[in-house]
């Protein structure tokens, strides 16, 4: 006799994770190597400033909203920050996730209180809903939205909701919910290299690129 929920969990922990990790790691490397191999044309002009320093600086300065942006699109900025902070707090400080990361790369750190994780999760979910709402409400943004945007939204909210449900034994069997949570995270991992989720890696590359061009020209960015 089998427990189908347990079988699903074991698939999610076994072959499911193997497949997802292989596609994610292979996909990220494929995309990054492709970008770097493509290279840049050599700039023969004499540099007027330090491109490297300005490039590195830009990687961080672009995390701060530019002047006036907060007034123009407050929901995008505030919810954008809250989502990212909430998502990473929940991802990086839950004991079970730390155990997973520890097994993968051998580094561990102290886990946070469950209440903090749950508040972070709730904030991230509410922020995602607010972001979807602005996307729908604004005709320009709605027109600019593609399938990729909606897919990534669904893939981002699912691990948060299912993780919350699994920890709190909501929506039925906790084993089943844990399996669904892992599968949702694996869907996110698989989509990662081939959607705009890739920005989590390429943001540094593109910011450095833009920053260093300006820096070389002696301009601020």
């Amino acid at each position, binding site marked *: *006799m*089998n*427990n189908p929920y*347990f079988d699903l*969990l*074991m698939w999610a*922990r*076994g*072959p499911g*994770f*193997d497949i997802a*990790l*292989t*596609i*994610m*790691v*292979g*996909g*990220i*490397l*494929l*995309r*990054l*190597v*492709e*970008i*770097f*191999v*493509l*290279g840049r044309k050599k700039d023969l002009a004499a540099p007027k400033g330090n491109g490297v320093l300005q490039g590195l600086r830009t990687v961080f300065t672009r995390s701060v909203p530019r002047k006036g942006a907060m007034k123009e699109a407050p929901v995008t900025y505030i919810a954008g920050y809250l989502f990212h902070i909430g998502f990473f707090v929940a991802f990086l*400080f*839950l*004991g*079970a*996730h730390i*155990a*997973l990361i520890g*097994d*993968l790369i051998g580094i*561990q750190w*102290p*886990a*946070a*209180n*469950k*209440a903090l*994780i749950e508040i972070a999760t709730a904030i991230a979910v509410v922020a995602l809903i607010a972001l979807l709402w602005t996307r729908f409400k604004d005709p320009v943004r709605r027109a600019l939205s593609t399938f990729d945007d909606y897919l990534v939204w669904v893939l981002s909210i699912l691990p948060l909701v299912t993780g919350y449900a699994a920890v709190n*034994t909501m929506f039925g069997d*906790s*084993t089943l919910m*844990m399996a669904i949570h*892992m599968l949702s995270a694996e869907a996110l991992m698989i989509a990662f290299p081939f959607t705009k989720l890739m920005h989590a890696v390429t943001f540094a590359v593109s910011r450095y690129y833009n920053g260093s061009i300006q820096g070389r020209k002696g301009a601020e960015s």
Partner: protein
Amino acid sequence: MADKPLLPELMKAHGISRRGFLKYCATLTSMMALPPILAPKVAMALEGASRPSVIWLSFQECTGCTEAITRSYAPTIEDLIFNAISLDYHHTLQAASGEAAEAAREAAMEENWGNYLVIVDGSIPLANPGFSTIAGISNLEMLKQTAEGAAAIVAVGSCAAFGGIPHADPNPTGAVSVADIITDKPIINVPGCPPIPVVMTSVLAQFLAFGLDSIEVDDLGRPKAFYSETIHDRCYRRPFYDKGLFAESFDDEGAREGWCLYKLGCKGPTTKSVCATVKWNDGTSFPIQAGHPCLGCTEPDFWDNGGFYKPLSVPAGDYRKLGLAAVAGGAVLGVAGGAIARSVKSSAAAKHEPVTPDDLEKKS
């Protein structure tokens, strides 16, 4: 069965007072997760119960379940249950052996055809009937024979309920559970390795007191009264889980402080049982309290569920090798993709024909 002694007489014979009996019924009622108002009903039902015949079959097992049930706690409360039934056949406990033992089983079956209760511990090998035999009869044959006239079957322990350890990969004997063979009789699964003694006896008591229909079971045939909540949800170490405090090894500060054992592989979050509340040995302790993570023994295939000491969130597959392959494969594909993009770019540049304003004017 009318000529068999009723429970009150047996109680007297065992020196149990009426007060003691009623207290026992109240405990039992709460154990079965029934409302307290039903305690007198339990007493009445048990008082009126004659001793149904019980045939206990032991197949591919380690006798752990029998060892457990004989250690159910004092003062012989479970002994009462034992004496409230007529245990007509049980390898370990019966005095008779050889042909006399088998004759006792056959006589009990004949006498109580259609009414006796069969308890099974151990799995049944299908790969070769000779792997496990009793008096020359294969387990499969004996189970089929005995089950035919049974009122119901209780599969005690994870081996009988789900195949258990004999069923673990690579399952050399082709071991299966009772439910894999018998499909036309009601089967109650009481898994555990071994199950909590009081749980085993409570299920039997509920069967005696209220009949089979009163025992509500889940999808895996387990009585909901004992298998509906996870150990994690009732664990006394749960506050440490909630605070994010985990023992990282068996002898670190966290282990000494009694922190959560999740990172040491505890299967409490996915294991349904009353271990954390009912506990063992007269409510003394249970594995997690003794400092060891739950193995998840009340769940099917617990032996093969990714390793006892691997946290539930940690992948159980072959990801390290695949990860390295992905790094190499991704890099190679990336170089190839980049090279293609470069050649497309340079060929586009080579094919590019400069257009002068004159050319444009000509075309228009």
